């Protein structure tokens, strides 16, 4: 069973529906016992960094996520869910992220000819040998909606992408997986990524 963390963020239904579509049992919940007992956990999220951290902290879910990670349960962060795993974000100066992974979330610089947020399909540069992107075509297209991008200082990059600059689009470290784009909205490529996670 896959548990999707319900902390009041948007777009959770789409993630749930995509997992159900590929035949996975899943539950959307904020119940700590269910989350800690799940085979796999997803941290989704659309919204603002500061607001999301506050919601996680106030429900004690930050601690639950740390426990999930330390007991080795596979965790998948999606979009804002990726950003929250890191130390902090330009979007909410002074607000601490979960800090499970090392890196910062930075605002795209205003640049002539580019619109912010990046909205749409962009191609990935995949690192060879990752579990999460196994069996995908070279440079697959995935769907992004974001104004902030990840720069990690750890050797955990699973995919990078270019928009205005090169940024880290996905990471993989032991049982932690996260992507800035939306696999649940990335057609067949996205469903394959979710299947890879489900099959871990």
């Amino acid at each position, binding site marked *: 069973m896959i548990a999707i963390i319900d902390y009041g963020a*948007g*777009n959770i239904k*789409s993630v749930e*529906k995509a997992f159900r*579509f590929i035949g996975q049992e899943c539950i959307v919940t904020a119940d700590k016992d269910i989350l800690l007992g799940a085979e796999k956990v997803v941290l989704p999220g659309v919204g603002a960094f500061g607001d999301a951290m506050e919601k996680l902290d106030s429900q004690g879910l930050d601690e639950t996520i740390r426990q999930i990670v330390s007991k080795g349960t596979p965790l998948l962060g999606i979009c804002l869910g990726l950003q929250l795993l890191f130390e902090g974000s330009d979007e909410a100066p002074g607000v601490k992220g979960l800090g499970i992974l090392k890196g910062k979330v930075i605002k795209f610089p205003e640049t002539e000819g580019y619109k912010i947020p990046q*909205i749409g*399909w962009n191609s990935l540069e995949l690192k060879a040998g990752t579990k999460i992107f196994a069996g995908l075509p070279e440079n697959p297209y995935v769907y992004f909606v974001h104004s902030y991008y990840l720069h990690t200082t750890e050797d955990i990059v699973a995919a990078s992408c270019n928009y205005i600059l090169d940024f880290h689009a996905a990471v993989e470290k032991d049982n932690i997986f996260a992507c800035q784009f*939306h696999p649940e909205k990335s057609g067949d490529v996205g469903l394959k990524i979710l299947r890879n996670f489900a099959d871990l």
Partner: protein
Amino acid sequence: MLTKRIIPCLDIKDGRVVKGINFVNLRDAGDPVETASAYDKAGADELVFLDITASSDSRDIKADLVRKISEAIFIPFTVGGGIRTIDDFKVILREGADKVAVNSAAIMNPALISQAADKFGSQCVVVAIDAKRRPDGSFSIFKNGGRIDMGIDAIKWAIEAVKLGAGELLVTSMDCDGTKNGYDMELTRKISENGGVPVIASGGAGTMQHFKDILTDGKADAALAATLFHYKEMEIKDLKEYLHKEGISVRR
């Protein structure tokens, strides 16, 4: 590289797909979920559903439609038509839509744009603009499906909508819609250059060259068409192949 998007539009009435020529003469042609799924397989980057159901229970019909679509297709989609309140946004987004398009209600109550952007994020607020050329060459916006001239300048309205929190603009040229003579290059370019958010061009697509033109000189980020794809006058796959050969970045 971020790709230009090709977006089929499905007009929905009472839960069925229809397409009006110049906003009248509706033709019934298909089940929304099946059509959406077919477009997904054909390579559509995104879908737009415009619900033109006029009945009082249209919100329930929309919610039901959105639920069914989001269980079957996994590419982004926008729902518009008859959106009036924050609750309308909430219901549609909760059922799985990625964006909500608002037109008349935003003109009558611009605060709806900022309220929706604050609550759900700009990325899911699409302001749809129906514009028609005036004798002096400027553009006026219309509400109620192109029936009522608001006497407001389209470029100014686009800038205002973005300031309020619109994350994307869906710009339909009423002059070009249904003609198949090409998109309105000037209208689209002006709004794209002044708005600062992605622009979806709509109305007038007839040939592959039209798509190329609007995505290059017209400065559109995405191009929308309905009848062309709906009646299989053009295959999305062929269109993307053509655009790729013309040097435009598309998802293939």
